[in-house]
């Protein structure tokens, strides 16, 4: 590849399949590459990587798929991944390097940027090329989402992490051609300074359900207690949905942190979101702004959530929710 002329996406796999965010990175990566007249590469790091995923990456827009398969890279670890990506970036010299705003991206991208002596913008919701300078313009929320900032940098590579569900995923075209290239970088294992001893992940739990539920009923600080969440669980059940929360109920220990929706929690895009006793801070709304219909219940007519909702009612959830539950029981098929 020519000097600093290409876009490189760091791909992530879940159970051998590209994550939805990886497909979104390929979608925006392809657009940027086409605009610049450059190539789009995708890199997978890991161990025992699924070869089908490489072909899928080509079908989803990658011109080159780089594979760094090494037992030492089986799970994400800061030192090994930063070291390998540093070597790879110095060899491939991408002009733009994209990560998902994920557990891996939040850790790897900043550290890598500092190692490469470049700059980065995290949690981008929009990426565009400036037609004059041909530099990458990155737009991201600031002040917890109350404002947006657009940045550019001349340092190379230009690094950005992209928020989930912010950009469109790549269309799939199985007739696309591309190259699959096995990389052979090595590193001294003694650079590894941290070790993951165990992982506790609820595969089928409440947090996981939140990510795919079409209806989400969310409680906020105004719920007042853990016990009061029970009525939200009942409503969610009747609507075939899941329960979520803004940050305060999680910080107060009323619900598990996995249920947190917002800037530093989950980003969801259900067909229907019902916010109960939630003020609607920008940080929380950042997690649901792409929901199809936003519905709110709050005692405060000035609550910010009403500025962001499609439908609302000003009232105490203790009076409103029983009516909603009752009506659902009467009118919805069992």
């Amino acid at each position, binding site marked *: 590849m020519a000097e600093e002329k290409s876009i490189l996406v760091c791909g992530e796999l879940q159970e051998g399949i590209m994550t939805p965010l990886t497909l979104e990175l390929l979608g925006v990566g392809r657009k940027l590459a086409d605009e610049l007249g450059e190539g789009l590469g995708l890199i997978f790091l890991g161990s025992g990587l699924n070869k089908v995923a490489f072909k899928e990456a080509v079908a989803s827009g990658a011109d080159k798929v780089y594979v760094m398969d090494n037992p030492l890279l089986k799970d994400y670890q800061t030192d090994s991944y930063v070291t390998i990506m540093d070597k790879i970036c110095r060899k491939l010299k991408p002009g733009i390097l994209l990560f998902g705003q994920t557990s891996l991206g939040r850790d790897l991208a*900043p550290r890598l940027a500092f190692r490469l002596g470049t700059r980065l913008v995290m949690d981008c919701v929009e990426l565009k090329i400036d037609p004059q300078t041909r530099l990458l313009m990155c737009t991201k929320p600031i002040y917890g989402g109350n*404002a947006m900032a657009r940045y550019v940098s001349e340092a190379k590579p230009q690094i950005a992490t992209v928020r989930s569900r912010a950009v469109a995923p790549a269309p799939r075209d199985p007739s696309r051609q591309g190259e699959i290239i096995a990389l052979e970088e090595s590193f001294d294992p003694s650079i590894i300074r941290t070790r993951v001893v165990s992982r*506790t992940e*609820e*595969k089928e739990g409440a947090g996981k359900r939140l990510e795919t539920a079409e209806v989400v009923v969310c409680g906020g600080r105004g719920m007042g207690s853990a016990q009061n969440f029970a009525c939200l669980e009942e409503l969610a059940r009747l609507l075939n949905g899941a329960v979520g929360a803004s940050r305060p109920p999680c910080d107060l220990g009323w619900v598990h942190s996995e249920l947190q929706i917002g800037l530093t929690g989950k980003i969801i895009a259900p067909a229907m979101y019902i916010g109960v006793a939630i003020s609607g801070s920008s940080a929380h709304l950042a997690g649901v702004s792409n929901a199809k219909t936003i519905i709110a219940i709050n005692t405060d007519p000035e609550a910010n959530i009403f500025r962001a909702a499609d439908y609302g009612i000003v*009232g105490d959830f203790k009076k409103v929710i029983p009516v*909603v539950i009752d009506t659902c029981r009467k009118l919805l098929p069992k």
Partner: protein
Amino acid sequence: MNMIVCVKQVPDPETPPKGFKIDPAAKRVIPPLGAALVINPFDENAVEAALRVRDAHGGKITALTMGPPDAEDVLRHAMAMGVDEGVLLESPAAEDFDSFVTAYCLALAIKKIGAADLVLCGREAADWNAAQVGPGIAELLGLPGVTLVKNIGLADGRLKLERVIPNGFEVVEVGLPALLTITNELGNPRYPTVKGVMAARKKEITKLSPQDIGADAARWGGGQLKLLDLFIPVQERKCHIFKAETVEEAAVGFSKKIIELKPT
């Protein structure tokens, strides 16, 4: 255990979104009139994390901030929570500085303070939400780093950490010295006590200048992140509010709308 916690003063993130304005010429966000300046909430979690380590294992905690003279308030808040010492690093005289400059200056200040076994940072600042300074300091100081930490255990000079991952957590081991970024899942920070506030008022705050720490402006020249544009996103939805004589009546119409729009 010598600990240094990096803290930042930010406009109160609890400030209602209504009333935020932009000064397009200065490219500054203007929080609404009367918005308080507070310690960055994630940095407060980091202070709490340090206090818990000290409660269990002993040690000394220094709070470090880079900012204008008024930023002293966040150091006093940290000391009122129980932190031992405070250091105020004067911001460099740069026009606008990005996360690299911040990390570079804080890293030098940490070297100047010296002997840190553990450096703690909040995961991101509630104003610019860059989330880079913690990992940046770790890289500049050559320290192992673990992000998104919600629990710190220590045994035989090694840390055993709980790190947040989607839908769960992982247990990560690392030796000292190390840098950790702390997330709110750690739990609510302790309130400063009245006694703590009084004691904090009497303490000396060490003041450092960029010259004191050997900051070299040439290090961050060129390639700086440039802020092109600031804007407040326009809300596109228009809310229909259900009203009636009583809330319960209004709730009936409200419920029917939910059922109508519920996905099949």
